[in-house]
């Protein structure tokens, strides 16, 4: 079976695309899949540090596109995993150094020998976004339970529909169950009501994410990490397994609603 290209995008910046890409890559690779991640955020290279591979970069994606290196030469192997590779972004170039056609060609070159090609998209809806989405067989839309992030995700849903890239699958990141319970954070159901696209994962807010990016070892490598578990679940759903969504959250209960009413009318 030829490899599948999965692009991780969001519209709004800083919602967790790079974190998601690194963790899904690790989770898939740990399950024995051959995985390549592509950092499509040209000029703002980040996936390398989140994965802890920053010291091993020789060639980058622009070197491949412009013919200075072969794809294989630009693939940095993550030695902690059986078959996990990173193609880093160029740091000193901008998004126009790569075209959507270049991305399609690059991914097609990899499909023959790689099971999963994960593309980390830059924020926004401009050239970098179009580059990242062009080769995608499936698009994951990351958002946070927050008005501006959901609004931007809705924009992405509309753009993907226009490009006939399907509705995309939703990853709701940085959920704080206690705030949802109190009625002070949009719940997963609220966000699904609004975006009306299929859900593929809910990731809790977890301090361990920062610790793991400090160390350059994605949380999915850690069996005890809660966010890591959520990313491992998403990886299994990508493979077509049906994994139940653990309830990290509840709708505000009767007493919370009552308390909110009292506090507001006081």
């Amino acid at each position, binding site marked *: 079976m030829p490899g599948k290209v999965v692009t991780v995008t969001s519209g709004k910046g800083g919602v967790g695309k790079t974190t998601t890409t690194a963790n899904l890559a690790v989770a898939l690779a740990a399950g024995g899949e051959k995985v390549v991640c592509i950092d499509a955020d040209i000029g703002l290279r980040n996936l390398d540090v989140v994965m802890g591979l920053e010291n091993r970069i020789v060639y980058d994606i622009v070197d491949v596109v412009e013919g200075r290196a072969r794809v294989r030469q630009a693939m940095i192997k993550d030695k902690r995993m059986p078959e996990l590779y990173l193609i880093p972004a160029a740091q000193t170039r901008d998004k126009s150094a790569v075209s959507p056609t270049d991305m399609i060609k690059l991914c097609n070159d990899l499909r023959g020998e790689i099971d999963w090609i994960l593309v980390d998209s830059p924020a926004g809806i401009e050239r970098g976004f179009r580059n990242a989405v062009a080769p995608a067989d499936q698009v994951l839309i990351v958002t946070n339970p927050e*008005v501006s992030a959901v609004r931007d995700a*809705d*924009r992405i*849903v509309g753009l993907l529909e226009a490009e006939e890239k399907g509705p995309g699958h939703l990853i709701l990141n940085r959920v704080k169950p206690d705030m949802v319970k*109190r009625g002070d954070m*949009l719940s997963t159901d609220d966000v699904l*009501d609004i975006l*009306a696209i299929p859900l593929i994962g809910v990731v809790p807010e977890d301090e361990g994410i920062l610790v793991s990016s400090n160390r350059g070892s994605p949380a999915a490598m850690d069996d005890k990490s809660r966010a890591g578990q959520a990313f491992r679940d998403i990886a299994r759903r990508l493979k077509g397994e049906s994994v139940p969504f653990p309830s990290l959250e509840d709708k*505000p209960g009767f007493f919370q609603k009552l308390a909110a009413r009292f506090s507001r009318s006081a």
Partner: protein
Amino acid sequence: MSNWFERLLGRSPTTSAQSAKERLQLVLIHDRTDLSPAVLETLKDEIIAVISKHVDIDAGGVEINLSQGQRENRLVANIPLLSAPTGRRRAR
């Protein structure tokens, strides 16, 4: 106190998550259709003008809104008619 009682009965939005959801729903209607509130206002005035040519309406009560289902939007007009006192059309 009556306000407090209403809240207890769940008549008004209470939590910040609920207001986030309601605000999102409103802003997305406009994002998705590219129809600004100003355009809607113009539309409303023109609709009132056209309909008034044929029947008496309560112009102050006219509402033109965008509503949405899953990912489809529709324009919903609510136009109250003024009823003629005798049941027939009023002579002007």
